């Protein structure tokens, strides 16, 4: 049944107004400005601008570097989302299963959430430092010459590890609450129907967690795409060089750091379109398969 609602009057508009105003002024205006400037090549100080049509887009899309960054972004996003979700899920399932100390674990596991991304990045660079980083030392025990900043893949590894580390806490919190809202009787029914804990997990618990997982997937993709910005900035030490960066960071590099307004606006617009498409796909196709308990 549809939600019972109040009739239509001036009230909803009044309630909506503040957010709409803020969104319009601080989101749509700037976003519109970004779209506009993606068609221009503009002197950063605003003295002059040349209309170049779709040139900025053409330049961006034909750039091999842009494609490399795009494909890294896809991998990065997929891997970060996957590991952050998987590790958090494992921990949440275990924290939900143990009877003793559940609350302690919960506290220990969730408070990393409170750390600022730049701080997380700072810890990341120190831990992965080529010369004195403990993780590099640990890796060398296994014969892995981990060289962050030198080797593209090693840097990618460190970025992903740090990004995952930071995101696990949030996912953990949500998964734990998701688990706790699965009806107890259903889990007990599964206990009777199925001996293997692993099988039980994959056939009953996981499907029932899909609403949470779906929501988290959206959050994690957004996180990996956008919120890892500060972390990448720190881990590449502001000098990306041959290190992997994501699309958003590239927008920042070209626009904020390099003052190429037209080029970075074009990239922003491309990004918007991609994310919008992604969101529509997520909502259309995935939510349909989600099981709401």
């Amino acid at each position: 049944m549809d939600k019972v609602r109040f009739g239509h009057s001036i009230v909803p508009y009044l309630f909506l107004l503040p957010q709409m105003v803020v969104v319009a002024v601080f989101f749509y205006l700037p976003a519109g400005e970004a779209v506009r400037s993606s068609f221009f090549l503009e002197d950063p100080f605003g003295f002059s601008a040349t209309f170049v049509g779709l040139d900025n887009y053409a330049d961006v899309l034909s750039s091999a570097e842009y494609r490399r960054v795009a494909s890294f972004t896809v991998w990065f996003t997929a891997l970060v989302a996957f590991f952050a979700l998987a590790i958090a899920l494992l921990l949440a399932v275990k924290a939900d299963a143990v009877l003793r100390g559940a609350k302690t674990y919960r506290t220990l596991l969730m408070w990393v959430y409170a750390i600022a991304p730049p701080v997380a990045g700072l810890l990341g660079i120190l831990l992965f430092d080529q010369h004195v980083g403990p993780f590099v030392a640990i890796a060398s025990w296994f014969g892995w010459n981990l060289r962050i900043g030198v080797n593209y893949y090693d840097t990618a590894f460190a970025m992903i590890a740090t990004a995952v580390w930071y995101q696990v806490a949030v996912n953990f919190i949500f998964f734990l609450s998701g688990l706790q809202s699965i009806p107890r009787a259903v889990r007990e029914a599964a206990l009777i129907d199925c001996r293997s804990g692993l099988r039980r997990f994959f056939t009953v618990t996981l499907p029932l967690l899909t609403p949470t997982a779906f929501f988290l997937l959206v959050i994690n993709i957004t996180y990996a795409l956008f919120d890892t910005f500060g972390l990448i900035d720190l881990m590449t030490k502001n000098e990306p060089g041959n290190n992997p960066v994501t699309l958003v960071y590239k927008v920042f590099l070209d626009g904020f750091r390099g003052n190429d307004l037209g080029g970075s606006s074009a990239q922003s617009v491309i990004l918007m379109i991609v994310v919008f498409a992604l969101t529509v796909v997520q909502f259309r196709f995935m939510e349909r398969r989600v099981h709401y308990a």
Partner: protein
Amino acid sequence: MARLHIDQVSKIYTGTQRAVDTVSIDIDDGEFLVLVGPSGCGKSTLLRMIAGLEAITEGAITIGERVVNDLDPAERDIAMVFQNYALYPHMKVYDNMAYGLRNRGIARDEIDRRVREAATTLELGPLLERKPRELSGGQRQRVAMGRAIVRNPAAFLFDEPLSNLDAKLRSHMRVEIKHLQRSLGITSVYVTHDQLEAMTLADKLVVMNAGKVEQIGAPLDVYERPASTFVASFIGAPAMNLIPFSALGDDGRLGLRDAAVATIGFRPQDVIEVANDNEDGDGLSLRFVVDAVEPVGSESFLHGKVGAERVVVRIDGRAPHREGDRVGIAVPSERLHAFDADGRRLDDWRAPIGTDTAKPKIRAR
């Protein structure tokens, strides 16, 4: 198909309080045992210990020949039907039923055969492709039953499986469950706090109170010879009227007395209306003031008071009484129950004048 043996089982959740307190029950092969009692008396806890969902603090539970205390639920060869059905919301009806079998590595066509058979029995045939949320309450209930049946387990466990259904469906499913259990011949343990369900379903009835067993027996035995005031007031609807012996004062005219008698009880339907001053026969006769009249069609209930005690009287057909009426009522001596100060039944509290306890008969109107 197996015997179930519960041997001095206790459950302590925390501290020293026993949610289930040294309970021993034997359940024969194919028997339908009903656990009944008020909310919080430990019924579910006991059932869940049998299922393996709750650790057993003390005592042992044996299913068939095996002590199951340390076995996983899935290894105990039991099937359980939950109060809110606990269907897997993400699986179709078919898969809900097949799930337990698949995990036991049964061949696909064997699973298919069993599921379809159960679906036919339960008239679920057309629903096999639906998801639980597309089913009505009664249909869900039947799927939950189906899930238990296909497993063909040593024992069925039911935890208030009907309490989420409306009255009509409830009485319908009651008959179905009984019928099914009979035809499958599977040992069953059924938890309810509805005394009507308990009475109609049980081969053997266990009345529990505060973690302890109050009485074990055939339902009608329990009904007719409640072992305590607790059982007396719990079994039978409306409940047995219980009046402190002292309150009867001069109003009650009882042939014999026993010093231990503390409470006298009688059921609403055992009351007969008498002329105000009628004093014939032995038994109880009382003055009753009507408070409220509830006509239910084929019978009516008079709610009212005897002295300060609330009493309910059942009358066949439509009652001519109205609020405030004063009525003389009597209860034949052999229909009276007596209990001591601890609430325990007294059997020989009066000289036997003729023990014609309830001869079953069909009475002509």
